[in-house]
């Protein structure tokens, strides 16, 4: 965490329904950084994203954007939810959806404008969705919808883009497509990205840093620093192994009977 971070989480804790979902989470994200929010299901990733968006109040701690608390109408954070709960008959074409990214939060009518049309068209081309610009959003596949929602989020030029498990329901080639689009756009537009996933491997080519979440706590740093057995075992509260094979990383629970003493973590500088 440094004082000129774009996004700062300062000792954030969230308690819901009698359970502590997030405990004393602190980290910072700098402008233009691509950060993976990695962790198993149920670890608190979605809650963390909602806290940053202002959709989930914190029990203690603070979320700061550019050093000050986030205001409700802040347009500097873009958000791509995991799934759209829409019916196939939703009367929005892809280009309408992206256009809503500019002014969907405003009241009143507006006249069509060529400038807006061109902006939408450029954004669609940038994410590779131009060829289905006139299709209904409800008729697209998961991967196609992701691209459209990325365009929707980026068109208002946010400084930070949050994505909730964008790769969860995609096949491998769609996965790779989305990752490369994100990597390219993030660099081109100088947008910081925070992307949650339960598998870090597809993100290795583009990820600068990792925030690993487990049991409501986080470990932050470079992948090599954080994804280590000692660090992760401390997070999970039980022994885990980290296996590296063919350039990929697997985190697995240890079988029964492994010596618990092996699982002691010592690196206070990495875990906050």
């Amino acid at each position, binding site marked *: 965490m440094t004082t000129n971070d774009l996004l700062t989480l300062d000792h954030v804790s969230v308690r819901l329904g009698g359970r502590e979902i997030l405990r004393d989470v602190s980290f910072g994200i700098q402008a233009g950084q691509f950060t993976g929010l990695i962790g198993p299901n149920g670890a608190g990733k979605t809650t963390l994203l909602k806290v940053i968006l202002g959709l989930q109040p914190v029990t203690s701690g603070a979320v700061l954007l550019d050093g000050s608390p986030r205001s409700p109408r802040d347009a500097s954070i873009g958000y791509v939810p995991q799934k*759209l709960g829409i019916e196939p*008959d939703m009367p*929005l074409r892809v280009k309408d959806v992206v256009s809503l990214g500019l002014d*969907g939060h405003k009241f009143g*009518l507006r006249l069509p404008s060529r400038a807006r049309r061109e902006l939408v068209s450029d954004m669609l081309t940038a994410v590779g969705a131009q060829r289905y610009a006139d299709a209904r*959003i409800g008729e697209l596949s*998961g991967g196609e919808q992701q691209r459209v929602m990325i365009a929707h*989020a980026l068109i208002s030029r946010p400084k930070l883009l949050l994505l909730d498990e964008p790769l969860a329901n995609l096949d491998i080639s769609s996965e790779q497509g989305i990752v490369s689009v994100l990597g390219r756009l993030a660099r081109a537009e100088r947008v910081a990205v925070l992307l949650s996933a339960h598998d870090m491997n597809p993100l290795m080519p583009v990820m600068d840093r990792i925030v690993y979440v487990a049991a409501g706590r986080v470990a932050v740093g470079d992948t090599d620093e954080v994804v280590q057995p000692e660090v992760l075992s401390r997070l999970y509260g039980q022994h885990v192994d980290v296996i590296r094979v063919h350039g990929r990383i697997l985190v697995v629970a240890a079988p029964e009977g492994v010596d618990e003493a092996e699982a002691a973590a010592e690196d206070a500088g990495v875990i906050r």
Partner: protein
Amino acid sequence: MHYVFEPGFFASGPVHVALAVGTVVAITSAVVGVFTVTRGQSFAGHSLADIATTGGSGAFLVGVNQFWGYLAFGAGAAAFMEMIGIQRRRGRDVATGVVLGAALGLAALFLYLGTQYSTTTGASFTILFGSIFVLTPSTVPALIASALLALATVAALARVLLLTSLSPDIAAARGVPVRAVGAAFLMALAVSVALSAMIIGAVLSTALLIGPAATALRLAKSPVRAAITAAVLGVLAIWIGIVLAYDSFYWPPAGRGWPVSFFVVTLIVGGYLITYLRRDRQSAPQENVDAEQACSPA
């Protein structure tokens, strides 16, 4: 021409009023209906018609102009539904149903009390079905003003409503007051439905709200086109319905004419079903989504 339009059609005063009023109601219902169907609030839209009608009976009972009864009960029910409503769709429908049940109970009471003081035996029929040919011209200005108010509200909320339907989380994160917007829409819906229920009856009100909109959603891809298509379909249904009802005056079996509501409803439902005759490319996506949900570990 003579076969379609019976003599006297174009000269008839009641027909003029019916056409004008029917057109305004059809357009308003259609546009509001597009958002109602998209937001999954069809049951609320129907319930508000029945509830507003109860208000009409109540107003009639205490000697107040029915217009205020319809409006007050409609708006009041919308406010109440919003207060006790829950976010999940099913919970919302149940809350709506309970409010409807209470209102229907009141309707029973009002009708009973009404028959104590007069002999309006046909009251329950007229309440359900209305009678577009028996409108008084004095209601027209108030109707048009209220319809314009409902339309203006929905137009002002259109983008925000669409964004909220697309993703409530994105809308909330952009600072949209999602709950307040939902309440404002429900109020506009209540006003629109109260008016149409008063003029054309609860059944036609629901038909004009849901039918053209649902049909338009199958035909049009963008919000503006959907609204225009729905309005055109609604207006056509009303006009052709009125023509046929007028023509049917001489048809068997009773020589009294068939009811407008029958024709309008049949045209609306028929129009909806006809859209299924095209080669259907829309039944598959829902299956895909369900399969994804079933397999996903998330």
